[in-house]
């Protein structure tokens, strides 16, 4: 049993492409901590309050409808689902029981039965039952509810998609049922090994209140029922939210903090100043100058570096008159220096990507890169093969019957946002492509939702994109280019033809292949089609640096598991 659990590959639900933020952990310890281990209980401070900040406000508390990154981050604290993915101190992750004290998986891996613990309570004292979960999933499958995470379970849970898209099934027909008050059973379409990871996408609501409050559910702290380790004490949307320890929580005895405060600070430099001034206890810094400021403080702060599992890439519109030619696409993909990109634009705080997969992605327990012996660094191999991308471009132009002079070629680069970062990174790309390929680039600065809109209409040449997968498996990234059900389906990517069909087949095949080595190989073949024909051009994945005040102990997370606030405690704060 435990073994099965152990290899299940799970990650905290990141709420979208742009927010990838957690990763494998290296704790750079500034000393002392190991000395204290023995005397933890002695040194615990009287005031157990932890303050953190986020750059945007929590929008709402309804877990079915509010699923932006700040929402997910908060729901993780106030709402607990069946299982919980937590990071351990060595940088690994483990799946822990949460509302479910244990679970069984059928021999063929398609039926999951969760045993809900006796002492799991909502914060108003009502017991958490199997029916709450059945109700939650049925609501999600109901198109009238408009649940934003529902699509995650399409094709995973039996009849779920059919109910959601109104294809002859009702929400009551989905493969989630309560055997009794304490047992809930999920029936899957296929043995999806990452199913436990997905459970985070459905945090529970309770029928009586959900029906009573209707559209008001989650709109204020008085209109939500919570079952997490902390509950909301006060909420001033754009200023701060104060959470207090939930005394009804099943494991309340092991929760050390009395208070968690979540502040909203929009400007990164203001957040850095706030950390230095002691107004907050943790900050994630990106600017090298900000990092310097904190490193100057000596061991006042602990540093946690994490490789994020959300790759950034450029997507080419394969319907475009130029980019329908793979040589032209590849010329663009090969025509810039990724190492230089990372140094110039991100000041080294990233890993250049030659594969779509960040180095932290695994198949089973083993890192994907290791399983395929680095063969996934497709761009590197191609760069050796085609040393002159400009020649490749001219070849492509001739094939398509265009003027072979690249300077006559004009393409638009759509940015994902209008920030200074978007601006300078596209300016940098413009210079690289102009120098290496001799083409003219027009930068289209736009808000990212407008960019998605344009991508949706196929009205783009090159788009700036990124994706945070919902689980730690290459499929979580590759499937976004699934020609039919991916986010970048053929309509958006313009990718059709034998390659696209083969790509689809490979993904299907991989999902039915229990052998991990074989599966990794299938993923590699798929990636060779996607990256190797230049449909996308991976660029980098971030390395985040988090600074935690040294008195805030056991602040642990990685890219697959978010911070576990139950474990944090304050020791030695002046």
């Amino acid at each position, binding site marked *: 049993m435990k073994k099965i659990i152990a290899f299940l590959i799970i990650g905290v639900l990141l709420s979208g492409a742009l927010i990838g933020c957690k990763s494998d952990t290296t704790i750079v310890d500034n000393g002392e901590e190991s000395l204290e281990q023995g005397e933890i209980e002695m040194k615990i401070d009287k005031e157990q309050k932890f303050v953190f900040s986020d750059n945007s406000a929590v929008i709402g508390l309804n877990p079915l409808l*509010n699923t932006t990154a700040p929402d997910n981050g908060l729901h993780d604290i106030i709402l607990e689902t069946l299982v919980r993915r937590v990071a351990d101190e060595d940088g690994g992750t483990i799946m822990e029981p949460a509302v479910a004290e244990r679970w069984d998986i059928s021999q063929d891996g398609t039926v999951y039965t969760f045993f809900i613990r006796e002492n799991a309570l909502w914060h108003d004292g009502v017991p958490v039952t199997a029916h709450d979960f059945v109700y939650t999933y049925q609501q999600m499958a109901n198109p009238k509810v408009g649940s934003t995470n529902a699509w995650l379970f399409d094709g995973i849970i039996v009849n779920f998609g059919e109910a959601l898209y109104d294809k002859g099934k009702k929400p009551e027909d989905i493969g989630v049922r309560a055997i009794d008050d304490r047992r809930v059973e999920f029936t899957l379409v296929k043995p999806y090994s990452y199913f436990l990871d997905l459970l985070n996408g459905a945090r529970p609501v309770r029928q009586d209140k959900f029906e009573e409050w209707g559209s008001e559910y989650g709109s204020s702290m008085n209109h939500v029922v919570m079952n997490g380790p902390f509950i909301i004490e006060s909420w001033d949307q754009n200023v701060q939210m104060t959470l207090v320890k939930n005394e009804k929580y099943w494991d309340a005895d092991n929760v050390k903090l009395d208070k968690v405060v979540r502040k909203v600070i929009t400007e990164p430099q*203001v957040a850095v100043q706030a950390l230095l001034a002691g107004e907050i206890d943790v900050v994630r810094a990106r600017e090298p100058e900000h990092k310097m400021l904190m490193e100057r403080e000596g061991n006042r702060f602990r540093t946690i570096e994490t490789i994020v599992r959300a790759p950034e890439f450029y997507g080419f519109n394969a319907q475009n008159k130029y980019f329908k030619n793979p040589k032209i696409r590849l010329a663009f993909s090969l025509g810039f220096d990724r190492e230089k990109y990372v140094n110039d634009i991100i000041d080294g705080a990233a890993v250049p990507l030659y594969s779509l997969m960040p180095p932290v992605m695994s198949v089973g327990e083993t890192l994907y890169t290791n399983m395929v012996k680095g063969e996934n660094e497709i761009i590197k191999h191609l760069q050796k093969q085609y040393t002159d991308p400009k020649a490749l471009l001219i070849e492509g132009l001739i094939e398509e019957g265009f003027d072979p002079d690249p300077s006559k070629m004009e393409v638009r680069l759509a940015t994902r946002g209008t920030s200074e970062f978007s601006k300078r990174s596209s300016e940098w790309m413009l210079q690289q492509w102009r120098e290496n390929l001799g083409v003219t680039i027009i930068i289209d600065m736009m808000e990212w939702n407008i960019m998605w809109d344009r991508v949706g209409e196929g009205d783009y040449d090159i788009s700036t994109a990124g994706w945070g997968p919902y689980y730690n498996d290459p499929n979580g990234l590759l499937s976004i280019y699934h020609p039919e059900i991916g986010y970048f389906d053929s309509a958006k990517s313009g990718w059709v033809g034998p390659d696209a069909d083969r790509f689809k087949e490979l993904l299907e095949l991989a999902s039915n292949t229990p052998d991990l080595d074989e599966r990794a190989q299938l993923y590699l073949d798929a990636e060779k089609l996607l990256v190797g024909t230049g449909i996308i051009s991976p660029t980098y994945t971030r390395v985040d640096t988090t600074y935690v005040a040294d008195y805030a102990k056991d602040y642990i997370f990685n890219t697959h598991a978010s911070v576990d606030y139950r474990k944090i405690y304050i020791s030695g704060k002046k």
Partner: protein
Amino acid sequence: MGRFILKRTAYGLITLFLIITATFFLISAAPGDPIAAKVEVMPERAQEVIRAKYGLDQPTYQRYFIYMKNLITTGDFGESVIYTGRSVNDIIRDNAPISAKIGIIALFFQITLGVLLGMIAALNRDKFSDHFIRVSVVLAICVPSFVFAALLQYFIGFKWGITPIFGWGSFKHYILPVAVYAIGGIASYAKFMRNSTLSVMNEDYVLTARAKGCRRARTVRKHIFRNSLIPIVTMTGPAIAGIFAGSFIIERLFSIPGLGQYYVKAVSDTDYTMVLGLTIFFAILYVIALILVDILYGVVDPRIKIAKGE
């Protein structure tokens, strides 16, 4: 007087109607999709489900009728597409007072200091104090507010630690935002006040008063001050309406939860109920303020009779 107000109100209502209609179609025509902004990324058919839920799958004109019907019959601005579960009315109720508090304090300093400085400059025309005030006033207008705010945050907040750098709550949190908000306004009021005082000082009635032997201080108090306030009244009306709109830059830089932040975010998210609701709210205030200005005009300047004025 009554008829005048009635007439202005009728015009105001027509203006409002036109504004709502224009805003509705503008925001519907704007590129970008509130659903995409709300859910960030999800497959197309999943988005269809969400769109249907918010009625966004219907044609624009139909949504327009539904919106107008709802607005007129219930006065409800509708539910924000992005801030699920929260009505636009709630958001205005919760956040407008914050913008207003900063705005009113800033406006108070703007008017009092502006009028005072403007008078001093005008009465000491071409002397040192006049030049000094004029140059500082122009300098204050010249510095973009985000630059000014960044400087204050850096020195007063960070280097010297006198005030908090950001946030909202205690008295100290008001200092920097109010200073940034007020500075430009003080300058414009001072400038206007100086000009208007100078022109009033040359009016016949002022010269007559002086000729009759009225003392300078009395002339200033009785004749110049009141008359030179007229343009200030005109400026103040729209300024009062504007304080609820808040200032986006100030609210963003200082992390203040006012309406200005919501407005800008709503526009970039194409959250059309939010944009419409806030626009209507601001427009109503603006129209009322303009009517008030016309009435006040009559009070301040006896020469203008409202009945005759348009």
